[in-house]
């Protein structure tokens, strides 16, 4: 349940718009059923009051939008950032992907966002509205007389269950109380897959990736994927493809993408959130993060602007290539 309300954000945004500090607001627009909120640009107090919403379904990470919006929109943009979004924000700044001067960032606390598919798995299809009473979501459906109470914690998105930080690493202004980097067990699933035999592991990924429909949503939502022209969209690259020509290519896309964002991925989890086929894509990225942590020492992409990722900074302490293999063999 979010402690900060939409009304507080509307008030804040309205004040900044009215004072001319910002010219527009990147926020969430309410949808048809409560959970289907859409990222939107608001440029007047009336629009904010009519459509702005902040609830348990505002999962979208706005950082990536800043790349295109700071180029397209005039004036300063107000953006609301949840703790995990601020890591992407910093990472994009490290990569010089947008002009910091064009952004007014407000950090907002986040209690974790809800995965609507988990709610549906609990109450079934036919949700007409969703309310809250503190610890529970009160879900009204077309088929139940009374709203069904669903424990908020039981329907959190995977990335929120394994939340790595409630701390904002970037903002101009912070609403609510600052949180901390938190202990988490986000690498447990990676460790479980690492412990499989190569054949089992191959079968696991084969099964997951064979469902890919190459909609590119993972890439298009990923804050680390901001190439002006993606290699997979470039006919001259030789790997441009809209659908896999065979099962090898199917994996190629995701593996190449994981390599390309290695060291830059902040583990924001957008890839898995947007996948229409529920492929746990974040596990590929987490595997790289886990390996890098183990090989080169703990590193969190986006923690600070200007940090050099382990894969782009050489030190004499670096692991020798062969050691990674030895380590794998002894671990296995």
């Amino acid at each position, binding site marked *: 349940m979010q402690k900060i309300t939409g009304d507080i954000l509307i008030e804040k945004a309205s004040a900044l718009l009215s004072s001319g500090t910002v010219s527009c607001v990147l926020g969430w627009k309410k949808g048809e059923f409560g959970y289907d909120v*859409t990222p939107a640009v608001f440029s007047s107090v009336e629009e904010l009051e009519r459509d702005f919403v902040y609830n348990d379904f505002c999962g979208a990470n706005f950082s990536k939008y800043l790349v295109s919006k700071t180029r397209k929109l005039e004036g300063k943009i107000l953006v609301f950032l949840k703790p995990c979004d601020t890591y992407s924000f910093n990472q994009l700044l490290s990569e010089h992907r947008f002009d910091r001067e064009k952004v007014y960032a407000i950090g907002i606390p986040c209690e974790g966002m809800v995965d609507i598919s988990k709610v549906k798995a609990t109450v079934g299809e036919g949700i007409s509205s969703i309310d809250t009473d503190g610890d529970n979501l009160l879900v009204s459906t077309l*088929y139940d007389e009374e709203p069904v109470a669903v424990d908020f914690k039981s329907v959190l998105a995977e990335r929120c269950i394994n939340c790595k930080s409630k701390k904002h690493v970037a903002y101009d202004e912070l609403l609510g109380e600052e949180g901390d980097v938190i202990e988490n067990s986000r690498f447990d699933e990676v460790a479980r897959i690492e412990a499989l035999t190569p054949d089992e592991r191959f079968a696991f990924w084969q099964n997951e990736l064979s469902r890919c*429909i190459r*909609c590119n949503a993972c890439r298009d939502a990923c804050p680390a994927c901001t190439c002006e022209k993606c290699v997979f969209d470039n006919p001259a690259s030789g790997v441009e493809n809209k659908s896999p020509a065979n099962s090898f290519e199917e994996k190629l896309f995701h593996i190449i993408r994981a390599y390309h964002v290695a060291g830059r991925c902040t583990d924001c989890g957008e890839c898995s959130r947007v996948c229409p086929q529920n492929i746990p894509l974040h596990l590929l990225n987490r595997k790289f993060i886990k390996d890098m942590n183990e090989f080169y020492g703990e590193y969190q992409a986006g923690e600070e602007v200007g940090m050099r990722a382990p894969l782009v900074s050489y030190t004499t302490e670096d692991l020798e290539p062969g050691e990674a293999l030895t380590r794998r063999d002894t671990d296995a």
Partner: protein
Amino acid sequence: MRKCSLDKINLLFAEIAKNAVLYLPVDENDGSAVYKKWEDGTAYSNALNTVRSPKDFFFPQTENLMGFKTLGKTIEVIDTRVEPDDFVIFGVRACDVRSFDILDRVFLSEPVDSFYASRRNHGIIISMACTRPSETCFCKTFGIDPAEPQGDISAWKTETEVFFKSNTAKGENLLTALDGILEDCDNNEVDAQKAKINAVMNRLPLKNLTTDGFGGGKTAEIFDSPKWEELSESCLGCGTCTFVCPTCQCYDIKDFNTGTGVIRFRCWDSCMYSDFTKMAHGNNRNTQKERFRQRFMHKLVYYPENNEEIFSCVGCGRCLSKCPISMNIVKVMKEIGGNKGE
């Protein structure tokens, strides 16, 4: 009308599978449903619908069109086609059955797409009436009745029984072949179920959504609407809506070098993609606003204009639940068409 008790459904599936490959919705671990080939022990899903639409059966995501062998300056065209096996798709919802009609008007119009036609000829569709529509359903907007699904055979499922009615000769032949398992019955229970479904339909949040403002000839009126900019503002340009859509049928044709020859294949393409209309010397839809507009104009204006006012949307709601930013055709219809659907 014929029926069989629900505990005999596996016998029925086994009987169908004797002469054709049988596909039906099956539950996945993550709670979603997917069409799978029936094998002994496969359980029929109770889910409202599958994430991917059954258009795959007739218009697969990728299919080989032909092969080429080149030697020096010469080329040989190799026919790579194989006659598909007869197949039966069980449990297709009314919305998805309509999508086949919409695809037919594209692929079966002259010149007939023989790849599609061949699959269509080999397939039998057993539809299934809905009992628990979702908030995202709006098939009624397009005149589809989820209580009366079409297809070669229509089916209704109650707590204890499954009812069947054939609509085509193909369907009747199949039902006749299942005589040993099915028994004749009256319409009473099916009628009672239809009444129940219709009562639910009147409670759906999108029940009043209309196509007002759309249809053939509306291009000049809505093409330049300022709303397109606003609606497409946060569109990621991914292909999710297109690929989960049962009526999206745009495709690309590409060559794949296998190392020993060339395979020319066709695959799904998306008008949302930046390179969809890109030519060597330019692109006539350079912005996401233009690409976004194309998708909805196609479904709501261009297609009806070319196809006797039939809209190229069936109200299945897949794009409503799958779009990463929850932008969808309902929001477009409400904003651009001006009907609030309330």
